[in-house]
């Protein structure tokens, strides 16, 4: 007999995720992933100005902030045939690099670390030993015995107050926590340091985009004019600021994030055989170096790997009718027909058929999520850092091979350890190293361009809608920190006729399809050992290794626009 357990809310994620799992003989027999919040942004976009779309869809997510705006401007530029100036591409790449650096570090320390690091146990650490350990793995300066001892005192005082705040009710003392107290203390120290660091990293986006979260983008380029001789433009001071931030960010990743990741991973090698899941991966690729349309120029290569076969990488075509399709067999939506639909031909309306709240359990034999189920040529695929790293590795890219092979050697684990919860978490760190290097490359190129006299930042001619065709279709794609992201637009009479998003967490967290084929979360959770069903920290480890982002994942589109009437009947 299996026992059903529920984790809802899954915290330390973006959005609202519910996991139900059946436990049998100390292992997860089957798991169900459900998105439980919906905003219907695609419906709201209809009839609006395509030039404004980036701002609306930017609000899909404030954690992976900026990536939806970037995808959206690419989508509209694709539809209208706009080629942006090289400087704008570089600025977008630099902003995206800053997003990766920020987002991955915040994920590791603030969203994921407490699955591995026992905060309360850190109080038992010997500060002197902690210092020795810290200095043996990194030359990060904040590592003296006094530093760790002061921190420990501060946290002891905090814990003794009885008000544990964000640390309340954690699974502290759970047998699945394996780190020595000294590693726990380092983890805790860097949790706090990273909290302070992250607010610096985002300033790259503030300089170019005016604010963060939600910096400003622009169809046709970027709004931040280059003006080396004016206080308002990108001048020497602004550019030097960006350069400094990128360098400091790279330093933190190399001297804090990676050493911590490797130290922690070395105590959890068993997780290199848990949580692998699908074994099929997809990346759209990103960081163009010769324009968005030249996919071969991307720093992150594009491709699909099926069934762990890294000897074969297939191409993806987002425009083809039969490649990317979304299904709703277990989602709270309705189709007129049956089967899957390409996003350009989307047709659906929302229809909640779950239990009436408040409820204890979902009926998972029926529809059970607001997420749809996307498939690539009928295959369930995982997207995200692991997919990108594996595609880079399988494509034979030397930069990927170098970081991956070094990590495998350092941890003394086989290449198969990549297909796991640990592999997913490690891949996020490894690509952060690459991206932080690329960020500086893009920066140097930007400076070089300006030096040569190219100061163009936006192409404005096609911003005038009188130059637009009557109808246009576009695709914008990107690699969000959480994985492959694409938007599809249909412009008619200068307005958005249809706008659709298929986002990373929809690929990963979606419910199973009609064939019973599960998506990445559900696949990865199967067979995971659960020591104590009342404290399922193991579920959090695997789910967090994907870095869930649910606000992104839940959406709805309806080419017919019919469900508006329906909603207003349901509404107040």
């Amino acid at each position, binding site marked *: 007999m299996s026992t059903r357990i529920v984790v809802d809310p899954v915290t330390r994620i973006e959005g609202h995720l519910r996991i139900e799992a059946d436990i049998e003989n100390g292992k997860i027999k089957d798991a169900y992933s459900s998105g439980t919040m919906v905003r219907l942004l695609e419906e709201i976009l209809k009839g609006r100005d395509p*030039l404004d779309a980036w701002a609306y869809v930017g609000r899909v997510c404030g954690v992976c902030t900026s990536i939806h705006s970037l995808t959206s401007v690419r989508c509209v530029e694709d539809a209208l045939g706009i080629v942006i100036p090289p400087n704008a591409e570089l600025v977008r790449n630099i902003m995206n690099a800053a997003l990766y650096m920020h987002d991955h570090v915040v994920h590791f320390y603030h969203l994921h670390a407490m699955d591995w690091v026992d905060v309360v146990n850190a109080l038992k650490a010997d500060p002197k030993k902690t210092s020795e350990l810290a200095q043996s793995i990194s030359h990060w300066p904040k590592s003296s015995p006094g530093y760790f001892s002061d921190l420990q005192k501060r946290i002891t005082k905090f814990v003794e107050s009885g008000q544990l*705040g964000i640390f309340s009710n954690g699974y502290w003392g759970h047998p699945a926590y394996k780190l020595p107290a000294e590693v726990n203390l380092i983890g805790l120290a860097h949790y706090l340091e990273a909290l302070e660091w992250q*607010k610096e990293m985002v300033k790259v986006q503030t300089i170019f985009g005016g604010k963060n*979260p939600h910096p400003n983008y622009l169809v046709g380029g970027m*709004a931040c004019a280059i003006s080396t001789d004016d206080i308002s433009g990108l001048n020497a001071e602004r550019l030097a600021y960006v350069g400094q931030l990128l360098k400091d960010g790279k330093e933190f990743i190399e001297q804090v994030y990676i050493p911590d990741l490797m130290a922690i991973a070395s105590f959890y090698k068993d997780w290199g055989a848990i949580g692998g899941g699908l074994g099929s991966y997809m990346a759209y690729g990103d960081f163009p170096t010769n324009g968005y349309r030249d996919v071969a120029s991307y720093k992150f290569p594009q491709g699909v790997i099926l069934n762990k076969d890294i000897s074969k990488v297939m191409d993806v075509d987002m425009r083809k009718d039969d490649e990317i399709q979304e299904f709703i067999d277990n989602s709270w939506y309705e189709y007129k027909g049956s089967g899957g639909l390409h996003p350009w031909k989307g047709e659906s309306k929302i229809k909640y058929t779950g239990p009436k709240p408040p409820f204890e359990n979902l009926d998972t034999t029926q529809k059970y999520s607001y997420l749809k189920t996307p498939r690539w040529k009928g295959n369930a695929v995982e997207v995200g850092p692991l997919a990108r790293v594996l595609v880079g590795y399988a494509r034979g890219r030397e930069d990927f091979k170098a970081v991956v092979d070094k990590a495998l050697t350092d941890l003394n684990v086989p290449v198969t350890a990549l297909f796991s919860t640990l592999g997913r978490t490690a891949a996020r760190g490894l690509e952060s190293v690459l991206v932080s290097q690329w960020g500086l490359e893009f920066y140097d190129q930007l400076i070089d361009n300006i030096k040569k006299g190219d100061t163009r930042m936006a192409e404005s001619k096609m911003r005038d809608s009188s130059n637009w065709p009557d109808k246009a279709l576009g695709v914008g794609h990107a690699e969000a920190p959480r994985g492959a992201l694409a938007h599809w637009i249909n412009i008619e009479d200068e307005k958005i006729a249809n706008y659709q998003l298929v986002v990373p967490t929809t690929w990963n967290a979606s419910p199973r399809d009609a064939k019973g084929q599960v998506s990445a979360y559900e696949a990865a959770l199967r067979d995971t050992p659960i020591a104590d069903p*009342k404290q399922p920290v193991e579920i959090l480890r695997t789910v967090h290794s994907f870095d869930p982002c649910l606000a992104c994942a839940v959406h709805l589109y309806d080419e017919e626009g019919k469900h508006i009437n329906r*909603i207003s009947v349901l509404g107040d």
Partner: protein
Amino acid sequence: MDKPTVQKIPTYLEEFKRKGYSRKDFLKFCTLMGAYLGLESTALGQVVKAMETKPRLPVIWLHFQECTCCSESFIRSSHPIVADVLLDQISLDYTETLMAASGHQAEEAMRNTMTKYKGEYILCVEGSVPTAADGVYCMIGGKTSMQILEEAAADAKAVIAWGSCACNGCVQAAKPNPTSATPIHKLVKGKPIIKVPGCPPIGEVMAGVIVHVVTFGRLPDLDALGRPKAFYSKRVHDTCYRRPYYDAGLYVESFDDENAKKGYCLYKVGCKGPSTYNACGVTKWNNGVSFPIQSGHGCFGCSEENYWDNGRIYERASAFPGFGIESTADTVGKTALAATGVALAAHAIMTNVRKKKLIKNLEKEGKESEQELKS
């Protein structure tokens, strides 16, 4: 499980000790305090106890229809830094973004605070509440956001509505508002509500609101719309460093043109600074690094009510309903004098009723300075 539950927070006593005073000094202080407050000596014990055990401000932070940009903005605060806020100033007992516990343990943490600090905790709400279809468009732990908000607000001391979602429904409330996304003040009655709009609000503004409550022990002064006066009583336009270009009629005509490189006013490419009340021009973003206008893009009014339905982003504000200077906008700046005149007219028309007096004074000042310029 190592789960301390004893509450023995010697905040004030500890503060005394830290500063080198003894417990005897502390008791003396309490006696004086008691005398000052006119208490009987028998009540002194209570004072001592209260001072010894005053907890950090308990905070419950709920997440409904949102994108978490508010939480992200909050952790961007530079002064104070968020680590200090979390460790020293408040006890953030529930927040889905940062808390260690999930599922039942998370729900229990919230319940504990609601019981133990009944009437004392601050309820922060990020996100709007969908009321369509009996609330099923946002469910957490099997309950609708409507149910959760009602329960959590019942015993809260005050409510902070973070960001435009909680204050006005933001993007999901834009037409046709398919989920009936509803702002908090329409659902919570009989509680003080502080509205902190913006998409997101500036991090330092968010921390500033919290710090105000902790430091001064009371809620900040609010304007007629329920926003802290400190941060929302000035228009972006009036605090914008590019304002002189507006007054002189010098505008960016299209992005990346020569005027953009000179940092001219962005009004003609859609800047909504003239109708937006926020601290962006003064506090700026991410510890004062920049704000949208400084980085070359107009303000699109993310802290204003229903801004997603107030015209297109790149449409100049003159096309707003009731803002009838469309025909004259292009001629602004032909002469310095005409510019001032139109600018003043613009101010008057764009002015919200609630700010009429303030603007009247500004107009007066403007006219005076115009006189000065003439003479």
